[in-house]
């Protein structure tokens, strides 16, 4: 028989466990019309932590909420539709997330490690007085996570001591959740003061492209300083179109103005892990490797046999890219 003190303690523990019933909130990233694919990878990561609720906040985003409700593994969708969420500013979203947390007491709050997630999650964490965990690549248990440090040159496993875990997830490290098969209930977000007079969204200039999105493409072809100028990137676009690939770039190519910066692959750009990564005229600096070395197969085309990229490449060819790339485009088109 328990002594009463023990009994109370046991009850309290059970209650705590119940309250923190390992329920996970996923902050969905979308553009008011469509879900951003990395949210699906985030849902997979979140599913291994507990029952998944997704928060969809935006302007006229009911359609996105319906889309999320169908994703496999999603139990509930909280919809917050308000003009104040225009531009997804963290100053407006944080009070909403705090209100949701106050009501539902999630044990984990998870967002994709994209520009959006990286912007919002730490702001929320500071309000909850917890230490956020960025860009995780693995989950050992409900409080132990794996992430990379030093541009991917070391793997850190850490145990969070905080009550609530605020996490961003590296999309390429988790499979995408299936977009069908779920039956989440959509409900309105808890009331909160949505007014934001600290910041204002002015506008966006998005790079338009018909090619697949860089972080989720099956094949990525990237160019570096060796491309010499922006016009020569056309060689890569031609090859990419034949292969259904996305086109990326090294920092050198971006800094030299060959291509816009949202194409940058690396520690400070995007992290990709396609089935095939073709590095063209890229030497392979630490910072670039950080963004692509988890690709399944890496091909390097470089005229410098000493280029560090050859140390990670599965297939390397020492040749002038201006000869090799057009030849490859030809050969690829001949099925």
């Amino acid at each position: 028989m328990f002594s009463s003190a023990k009994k109370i303690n046991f009850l309290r523990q059970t209650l705590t466990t119940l309250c923190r019933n390992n329920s996970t909130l996923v902050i969905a990233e979308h553009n008011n019309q469509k879900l951003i694919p990395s949210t699906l990878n985030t849902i997979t990561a979140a599913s291994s932590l507990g029952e998944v609720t997704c928060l969809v906040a935006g302007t006229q985003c009911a359609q996105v909420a319906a889309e999320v409700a169908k994703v496999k593994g999603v139990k509930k969708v909280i919809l917050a539709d308000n003009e104040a969420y225009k531009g997804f500013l963290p100053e407006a979203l944080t009070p909403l997330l705090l209100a949701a947390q106050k009501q539902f007491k999630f044990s984990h709050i998870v967002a994709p490690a994209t520009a959006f997630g990286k912007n919002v999650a730490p702001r929320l964490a500071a309000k909850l007085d917890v230490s956020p965990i960025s860009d995780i690549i693995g989950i050992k248990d409900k409080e132990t996570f794996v992430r990379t440090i030093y541009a991917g040159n070391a793997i850190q496993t850490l145990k969070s001591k905080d009550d609530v875990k605020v996490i961003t997830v590296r999309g390429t490290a988790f499979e995408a959740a299936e977009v069908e098969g779920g039956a989440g209930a959509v409900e309105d977000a808890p009331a909160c003061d949505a007014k934001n007079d600290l910041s204002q969204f002015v506008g966006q200039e998005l790079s338009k492209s018909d090619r697949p999105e860089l972080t989720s493409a099956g094949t990525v072809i990237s160019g570096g300083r060796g491309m010499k100028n922006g016009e020569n990137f056309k060689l890569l676009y031609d090859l990419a179109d034949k292969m259904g690939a996305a086109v990326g770039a090294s920092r050198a190519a971006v800094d030299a103005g060959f291509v816009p910066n949202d194409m940058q692959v690396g520690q400070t750009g995007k992290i990709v892990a396609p089935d095939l990564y073709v590095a063209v005229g890229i030497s392979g600096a630490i910072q670039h490797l950080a963004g692509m070395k988890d690709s399944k197969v890496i091909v390097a085309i470089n005229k410098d046999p000493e280029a560090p990229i050859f140390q990670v490449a599965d297939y390397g060819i020492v040749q002038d890219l201006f000869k090799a790339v057009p030849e490859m485009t030809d050969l690829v088109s001949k099925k």
Partner: protein
Amino acid sequence: MSGFRILVGCKRVIDYAVKVRVKPDKTGVVTEGVKHSMNPFDEIAVEEAVRMKEKKLASEIIAVSCGPQQCQETLRTALAMGVDRAIHVITEPKEYESMQPIHVSKILSKIATEEKADLVIVGKQAIDDDCNQTGQMTASLLDWPQATFASKIEKSNGDLSVMREIDGGLETIKVKVPAVLTSDLRLNEPRYATLPNIMKAKKKPLVTKKPSDYGVDITPRQEIVSVEDPPVRQAGQKVESVEELVTKLKEAGLV
């Protein structure tokens, strides 16, 4: 108008060009005897603050670094680039190992209030822990707006118009001052400190404080279980011709 008072965060990190080595006992990476320098993103933050002062938008720039004794070298670099004075929040090397963005942002927000700063500018991420959190958390603690991953900052009326690097391209937001900004690589090209400026920097004020002076508890919130080498990729092969390459890719079903 007297101009903004700007606080810049400067972290001392292993130099970006160094290939780090994981300690055999898996507790971290080897830092002793390894070249350190200012976090590249923080150099950009300092440069932006100095440019604002040169444009008479800023009146004073204060650099802050948290960490062991050697952080003072990092602060001297900032002073040589044009920062007016520096605050070193000293911690024991052992304490510093478990210090996280949450601790640094608490210290920064306290200093920002105490020094009546109008802007806090920090790098978007440190290249060692790769967290990308401190600026956002500082803004949150101060209840100031945040403009992260900034590639262009302009004053427009009383507010700041900031161009941000986002996944699909660029976006522009307006934030009210006081605000926290985090610098992306393309915000500017940091200057080199000239020798006369390095000499002058030695005379600029640098005060030393402790986290407890700001009432900040730096108890670790996370326990580092292990730090390990990433998996090594199997050595690949050189192919002689593009034809051979494409054949191999076709065999693997990749083309």
